[in-house]
């Protein structure tokens, strides 16, 4: 049964001194794909500046805002309505030839096609000393290995807010073993890639009705490419396969490609940003 969601994203930026010029780019509108349909998006800001819909370098929908007057405080609010299809994540059949599949993902052609999601980035580089953290079992299918990796990540890292931030690297996460969805996802992607599986960082919203971890901010999970299946979502923060509660906005190599808010602001002194996300769900009649 399809589910309808109303997602409200709010951000408030406050500056100590007047801001003379500012540009923002929001990457917060749910994408359209086979499992989700975007019904509407409504975006407002407190300065009544024009909201320009556009795309970013990877083709995801963005909204740019460039106020034409000075200000010290600005709030943004976006409300999106999405219909999510219920999909059975196990609706596939796998052949028994694990061996040939493993050979396939090691072929040059495959590596080139998925090169950008196999690449180590700043956030997905595993420190050399930790290179043996998770190795695939070649006797199991890729899918089974990934489920095990999902479980492993979930068990290995403890969900804890305010101990990491948007600049935290895997070195600290592996050492301290705590973090938030972004950190779980970076670790999961890095380990999948280390085992030759293309993995991408997904930014989106999580409907938390069922008590999942999601810290009332934007959520993050991973998508991995499995031959014979295609791209499939894994949420290591909650040890889940992504489902109808996961509403996707964008994907990329890591957080940097998917940051919900990028800005260039000309001002002096300190500033404060606050975000909040509310995902309200209701079953469609």
């Amino acid at each position, binding site marked *: 049964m399809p589910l309808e969601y109303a997602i409200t994203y709010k951000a408030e930026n406050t500056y100590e001194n007047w801001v003379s010029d500012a*540009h923002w780019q929001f990457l917060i509108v749910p994408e359209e794909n086979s499992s989700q349909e975007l019904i509407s998006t409504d975006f407002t800001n407190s300065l009544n500046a024009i909201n*320009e819909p*556009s795309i970013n370098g990877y083709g995801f929908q963005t909204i*740019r805002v460039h106020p034409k007057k000075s200000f010290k405080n600005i709030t943004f609010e976006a409300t999106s309505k999405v219909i999510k299809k219920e999909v059975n994540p196990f609706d596939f059949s796998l052949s028994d030839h694990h061996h040939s599949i493993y050979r396939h993902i090691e072929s*040059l052609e495959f*590596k080139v096609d998925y090169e950008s999601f196999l690449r180590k980035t700043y956030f997905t580089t595993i420190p050399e000393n930790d290179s043996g953290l998770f190795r695939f079992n070649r006797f199991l299918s890729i899918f089974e290995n990934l489920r095990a990796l999902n479980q492993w990540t979930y068990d290995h890292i403890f969900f804890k807010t305010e101990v990491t931030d948007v600049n935290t690297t895997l070195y600290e996460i592996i050492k301290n073993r705590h973090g938030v969805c972004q950190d779980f996802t970076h670790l999961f992607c890095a380990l999948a890639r280390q085992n030759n599986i293309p993995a991408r960082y997904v930014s989106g919203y999580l409907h938390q009705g069922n008590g999942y971890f999601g810290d009332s901010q934007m959520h993050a999970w991973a998508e991995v490419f499995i031959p014979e299946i295609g791209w499939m979502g894994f949420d290591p923060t909650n040890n889940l396969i992504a489902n109808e509660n996961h509403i996707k906005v964008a994907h990329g190599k890591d957080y940097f490609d998917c940051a919900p808010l*990028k*800005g*260039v602001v000309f001002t002096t002194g300190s500033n404060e940003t606050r975000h909040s996300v509310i995902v309200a769900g209701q079953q469609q009649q």
Partner: protein
Amino acid sequence: MGSIKNQMFSSYQKSEGLYDEIHDSNGEIKAIYKKLFDIYGEHSIKDYVKLNDKAKSSFFNQGITFQVYDKKKTQEKIFPFDLFPRIIGPKEWEIIEKGAIQRSKALNLFLWDIYHDKRIIKQGIVPMELISSSVNYLDQMNGIDPPGGIYNHISGTDIIKHNDGNYYVLEDNIRCPSGVSYVICNRTALKRALFGVFNHYKTCSVTNYAENLLDLLETVKPNGVDVPNVVVITPGMYNSAFYEHSYLAKTMGVELVEGRDLFVENDFVYMKTIRGPERVDVIYRRIDDAFIDPLEFRPDSSLGVPGLFAAYKKGNVTLANAPGTGVADDKAVYTYMPEIIKYYLKEEPILNNVRTFHCSRPDELKYVLEHISELVIKPVDEAGGYGISIGNRLSKKELDQVREQVKASPRKYVAQPIMSLSVHPTYIDSSRSFEQRHVDLRTFTVLGKEKEFVLKGGLTRVALQKGNLIVNSSQGGGSKDTWVLQK
């Protein structure tokens, strides 16, 4: 040995083993230089110095200068220049011209490929690391079709003549190659100082560069634009190449803008004029990729235009050179140029490549470490002659240091045999005489949609320190007017 009677060259000393541009293998003055040699010989050194000084002060007064960065202060300097030109005969030029076009076209096809199907990598002709470990590869360019199918609209190819008498390419500069304004200024200065000599030679004009550039940039306009509005974007007047930026804008008759003069609205680009916003269609950008759009690339860039990349991706503006072109400027890509040319054009390379050792390959790394004193070690991603070590110029201790650097990050370095750049008589202030100095040649190639152009001339760069091989202006190099003779 040819007898040198004339005053100007009476003390000219030729070193064995160096290829001297004005002498043939018998030590005689080459036919194309003969007349020039005789005419200059009629002057005394004193006359020559006077003319040379006049030319220099005219550069200074016209503000044709660059800034040199020093720890204490920046200094305004002229690009050292001497009045004895380098001559290239029509036959040799034909090779250079065809070779430069061939390379530019091959690089363009290579760029298209690595931002689309990546066939050349899948077929194992070049390694995947060329893109996966290049800082200049932009994932955002994947699948984008640049207007007219052109990435490297403007290329600067650095060519040398080795002591075997053959031309070799040292590098292809396809980010924002500079120097073309000096080609034209050098010609102007020489014409003013010694107009008489031009009567004896049929020299190709270099003053048509800007009109050709504009013409070709107009062929890659975005779809649906009739007469495109072209602008040049500069980082600003404190940039070392600002003179060139303003020169190009002025001679093309287009606006010279900075990032803050432009803005993006509904994915179209506009400039702020005294009469309100005006749409911009083609941007010849002299700003590196990382700085063009702070919302897409480096967020701390104040030189760029927020939203510019979105406008580009939507096809509403052309950027020349295209973003991501720098990946092919990498010295590691250079080493595959012969394969790249053969793969896309089914042709043999016209210009030679210098044999290159990849420190990323264990066997080649081993060779490099063992023969380091006979090699030039270059970082793969530095421009301007920075970070180059020439093996036979270093002490044992320095060699050890270089070895350690290379071992620590082999992917960052390539090594080449020490090429012996040809030498050319060059007037040297300190000795008040002509001496042999090493030279190279930077040519300028412009690719448009089904049209291309090579400037008939180029920047002959001179390593002013005796025996030095590094010709970059930031490293104390000078330049000469370069004459390409008509057929």
